[in-house]
């Protein structure tokens, strides 16, 4: 059987900066008809450049310098541009990562899909409309007849991605390239979209080239897996083989660096360093510098392909025929070295409460009309109560738009809360004067999601770290004014110590943020927060913008800091495996309210609320035969400006009852701390007093 797509020795170069970047360097792969082929790798490995090379849509600075790309025997690189236009959208189509940016905002959905139909099938008028409707129905857009005349802004993120898929399918392609198709989506929406892609593939028999960094998505979707590292493929295998016995040290490290429940008491395996810049010349194995098993041969000779079993190939000297003996000894070694010892935190959790939030509400007014009359409120946070003990970790879980981040900022008084109380160590923070609040600011700090926007690009690292110290320790400085020289040198020492603490050499303090990678920037952000000796850190998705191996480094650091400094964390995230790894207690949030609360084991092991159950089941898992039943949620998160009456979850809930539409459920207790708000469970008698907001609705 001939492969549908055959790429041989593809080399793509980007001419940016002083030296050319070899984004793709000698890549060979083949995809069969109807097969899902996953290309897996960290950012900066050249995955997207491979996809764009296949489409011949490289950016201005990109150039394919060698190799061939054949689809059904036809070499795409020999086609003139005009003929290439018949291939794009017809034989190969592509879905991009960001559905918000991939649709033209001034064209209706039907027009955008119709464009494809007109180009490739010369369909016009009623026939075109008919076909658009068919395709939209195919991708599961509800009420497609009405919605096809709408504009992209009227669609939610998940729906937009469906429209993107519809556009890609309109040409009935033989190959669909999906470049991180679900990375920008929430887990429940991701489950819907992945489901849809699988379904469509079964019906139409097209092949999919799936580009992703998410091992979970690979496990759910792929038949074949190729691991890409620094511009080349280092391992190819069938899915079963790959997940059963990954061969390349890099693949094994990727698995080891995934956080999870069973790794709670140990540090995560980290891949030291980061992906080498592709602008340099490589001698020997590209992974050698970060590999635990590297020996002299790896640094001098680039490894060729060696077969592990039939259909499982790896580019590593460990599996070389001649050096095969190394395999067993080193594989044994892995088991010993991988989990580096982080002292299992001798539970510093004491029962003393550090933070107590009661009924916190943050409402944003919606202004309308000429006089900016308040027309309504976006109830971003609508009555959240939580407590964090000293040295404990509470994870706040939920989809985007449910108000997690606003809770964090509301606690820090970065956004003034509308109502409720935030007591830190017994002191009420809501309504404090700016000046009084400032005295307390050193105690609680925040780490942001995006390490690229959380550091001022125009300040040196030392200035960034010292900013908080200077702003908050004003009185210290006054006292030491007569010994001014001494205090500044003390401060310098402290900056050095902080940088070392987060794993950066002290010399880096003279540099600017743009010289650091994402993981290093996140370390700097942590150092900045630690500079003022906080006791509570609010971590707002600190690892979601980072690669898996870097995420492991940051999680290890956070865990170690907690063990040594006794920090308490409010960990805001949507990543369940991080929660399993790090948190003591979990609060699940839906549309501005906490729907379930309990210890990690209780909530993740025995979820009570239907939303928690659905959320957990939607997370892709790395098991070959998952014995779980995935609960598919329909629709999207409703708007917090206009939440549904009664239980907020009832429009999407598979167990909705008439009572759910009327009253917000009170809290049902399952253990000393495990509670959920759901009518499925016995309701407490005094609902109205416990849940004033429930009585209102």
């Amino acid at each position, binding site marked *: 059987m001939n492969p549908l797509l055959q790429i041989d020795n593809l080399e793509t170069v980007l001419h940016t900066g002083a030296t050319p970047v070899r984004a793709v360097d000698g890549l060979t792969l083949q995809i069969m008809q109807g097969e899902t082929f996953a290309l897996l790798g960290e950012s900066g490995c050249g995955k997207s450049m491979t996809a764009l090379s296949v489409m011949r849509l490289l950016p201005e600075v990109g150039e394919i310098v060698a190799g061939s790309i054949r689809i059904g025997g036809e070499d795409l690189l020999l086609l003139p541009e005009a003929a290439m236009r018949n291939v794009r959208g017809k034989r190969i189509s592509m879905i991009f990562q960001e559905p918000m940016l991939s649709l033209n905002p001034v064209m209706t959905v039907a027009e955008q899909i119709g464009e494809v139909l007109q180009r490739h099938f010369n369909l016009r008028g009623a026939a075109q409309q008919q076909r658009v409707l068919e395709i939209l129905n195919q991708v599961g857009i509800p009420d497609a007849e009405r919605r096809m005349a709408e504009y992209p802004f009227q669609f939610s993120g998940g729906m937009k991605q469906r429209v993107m898929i519809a556009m890609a399918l309109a040409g009935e392609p033989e190959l669909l390239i999906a470049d991180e198709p679900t990375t920008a989506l929430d887990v429940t929406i991701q489950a819907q979209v992945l489901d849809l892609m699988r379904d469509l593939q079964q019906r139409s028999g097209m092949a999919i080239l799936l580009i992703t960094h998410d091992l979970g998505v690979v496990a759910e979707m792929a038949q074949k897996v190729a691991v890409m590292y620094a511009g080349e493929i280092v391992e190819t295998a069938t899915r079963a083989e790959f997940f059963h016995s990954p061969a390349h040290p890099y693949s094994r490290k990727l698995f080891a660096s995934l956080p999870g429940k069973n790794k709670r008491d140990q540090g995560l395996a980290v891949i030291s360093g980061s992906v080498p810049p592709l602008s340099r010349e490589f001698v020997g194995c590209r992974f050698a510098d970060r590999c635990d098993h590297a020996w002299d041969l790896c640094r001098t000779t680039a490894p060729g392909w060696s077969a592990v079993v039939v259909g499982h190939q790896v580019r590593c000297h460990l599996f070389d025929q001649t050096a095969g003996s190394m395999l067993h000894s080193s594989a044994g070694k892995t088991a010993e070295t991988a989990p580096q010892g982080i002292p299992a935190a001798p539970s510093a959790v004491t029962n003393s409460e550090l933070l107590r939030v009661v009924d916190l509400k943050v409402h944003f007014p919606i202004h309308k009309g000429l006089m900016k009359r308040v027309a309504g409120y976006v109830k971003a946070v609508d009555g959240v109560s939580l407590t964090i003990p000293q040295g404990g970790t509470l994870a706040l879980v939920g989809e985007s738009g449910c108000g997690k981040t606003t809770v964090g900022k509301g606690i820090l008084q970065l956004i003034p809360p509308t109502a409720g109380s935030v007591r830190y160590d017994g002191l009420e923070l809501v309504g404090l004067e700016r000046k009084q609040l400032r005295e307390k600011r050193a105690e609680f700090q925040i780490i942001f999601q995006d390490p690229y926007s959380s550091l*001022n690009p125009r300040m040196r690292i030392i200035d960034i770290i010292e900013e908080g110290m200077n702003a908050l320790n004003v009185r210290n400085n006054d006292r030491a004014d007569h010994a001014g020289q001494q205090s500044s040198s003390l401060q310098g020492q402290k900056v050095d110590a902080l940088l070392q603490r987060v794993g950066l050499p002290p010399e880096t303090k003279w540099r600017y943020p743009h010289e650091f990678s994402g993981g290093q920037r996140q370390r700097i952000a942590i150092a900045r927060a630690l500079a003022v000796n906080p006791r509570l850190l609010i971590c707002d998705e600190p690892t979601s913008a980072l690669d898996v191996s870097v995420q492991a480094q940051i999680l290890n650091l956070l865990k170690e800091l907690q063990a040594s400094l006794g920090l308490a964390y409010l960990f805001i995230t949507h990543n369940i495996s991080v929660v399993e790894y790090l948190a003591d207690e979990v609060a699940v949030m839906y549309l501005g309210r906490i729907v379930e609360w309990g210890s990690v084991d209780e909530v993740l092991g025995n979820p009570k609320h239907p939303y928690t159950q659905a959320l957990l089941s939607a997370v892709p898992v790395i098991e070959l035969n998952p014995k779980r039943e995935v609960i598919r949620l329909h629709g999207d998160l409703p708007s917090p400006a206009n939440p549904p009456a009664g239980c907020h979850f009832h429009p999407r809930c598979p167990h909705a009852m008439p009572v759910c539409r009327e009253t917000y459920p009170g809290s049902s207790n399952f253990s000393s701390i495990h509670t959920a708000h759901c009518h499925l469970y016995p309701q407490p008698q005094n609902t109205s007093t416990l849940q004033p907001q429930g009585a209102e609705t």
Partner: protein
Amino acid sequence: MSMLFKPVILWTDALIYLLVLVVLAFVWYVRRNEHMLAPWRRVGHSASGMAALTVLVFFIAIGLLDTVHFRPAVENSGNSEQVYSVEVLSLLDVIAEPLRTRVEKTYSAPFAAHLYARETIELPDGGQVREFPRLQFGGAHLQNPDVELVADVTERAAVGAAQGFLGWCVLVVLLGALLARQDNAGLLPTLFAIRRGATEVPWNAVLLTLVLILSLLGAALALSTHYHIFGTDKVGQDVFYQSLKSIRTGLVIGTLTTLMMLPFALLLGIMAGYFRGWVDDVIQYIYTTLSSIPGVLLIAAAVLMMQVYMETHPELFDTIAARADLRLLFLCIILGVTSWTGLCRLLRGETLKLREMEYIQAAHAFGVSHWRIISRHILPNVMHIVLIATVMDFSGLVLAEAVLSYVGVGVDPSMISFGTMINAARLEMAREPMVWWALLSAFGFMFALVLSANLFADAVQDAFNPRVRTWSLKAGKLRRTERTKTPESKPVAAAAKDSNPP
């Protein structure tokens, strides 16, 4: 022992000195900060930008020479008290002494040896003829201008241009030696590298511009001692001299106006964006109102009011130059007050975006004060916009001055500027035969100034705009062409585009 001159610092002089100091401090600061230096390096990589800068440097040099003012001592016998002239001169006036003092009777064409108008001349025998009299200074050394003029002009021009070229050669060797010492390379290879354009800074473009300017300048200087190379105006003043004097006026208007408006735009724009709420509302209402009033009307009203005040208080000014200068300063202020709205709006938008950035949030979490956040976080991050706006506005303001002076609400009539030159020349356009040179030379100088300012502004904008990466693109293309020349590489995609469909 008394001094030969008395230094005079006019208001605009003081502000220009201040501006020069600020620019020098800025340069010093930028050189110490790698991240601020990087975009300026990109400016240095733009060939058109650097060529434009070369032209601008000459304009700025002339403008600065014209800024150093003083009053020369007047010869007086016996009196111990030193008396200074009421005329305020600048260094440029001293250097261009022959141009300034050699005043003809009235119009004369460029390179002419005769006046442009017939005059009645009494002959020694008592008879009268109407003819074009010889000029007092222009071509006065020629015995028979009709025959000798062309040869003399050509010769002088050639000698002047050759001198300019020689000077250029010396500069090239100096530059080559400097670069060679920096790179530890030989002089000749460095010179060849410059010629090929293989240097980081496009010195070949700079040197090409320089050879043009220096040759022209050499020729112009050699000729201007014996001719009025751009002719003379109605009162017989040299137009070349007037054009040189106009440069300072243009530069002052272009730079000081920006200096005047920056505080408004920066303060109000950042405040509106940062504090939002009622502060934002008030500031927005102010600039919306201001920008809906026709600018010329506002300027005319203000200038006329000021004019009346100045005329009723002549005792405030000890020289005419001081009065003209103050009027120029007021024009700058008025233009500044009416033109800050555009930049203010831009800055407000950018600040609105910045204040939501996470590093600002982090600063809030540290309890950093508002003014500290504004000065340390927001201001440095909007400076690129300020810079781009400043250089882009410059040329517009130079043109605005010309228009306003033409309308009659611009600079003092006694001050030489492009606007007053054009204004004086416009009536003569209708004359037969036409007097075209005054207008043409004002136009030429202004065109060169504005064009080079615009080209430089484009280079600055490209370098500071994060979305444009001119240099890397260019370097990529360069390398690509190099590679296609080498035989071992196979540019597949490029070849594919040329081949026929199978």
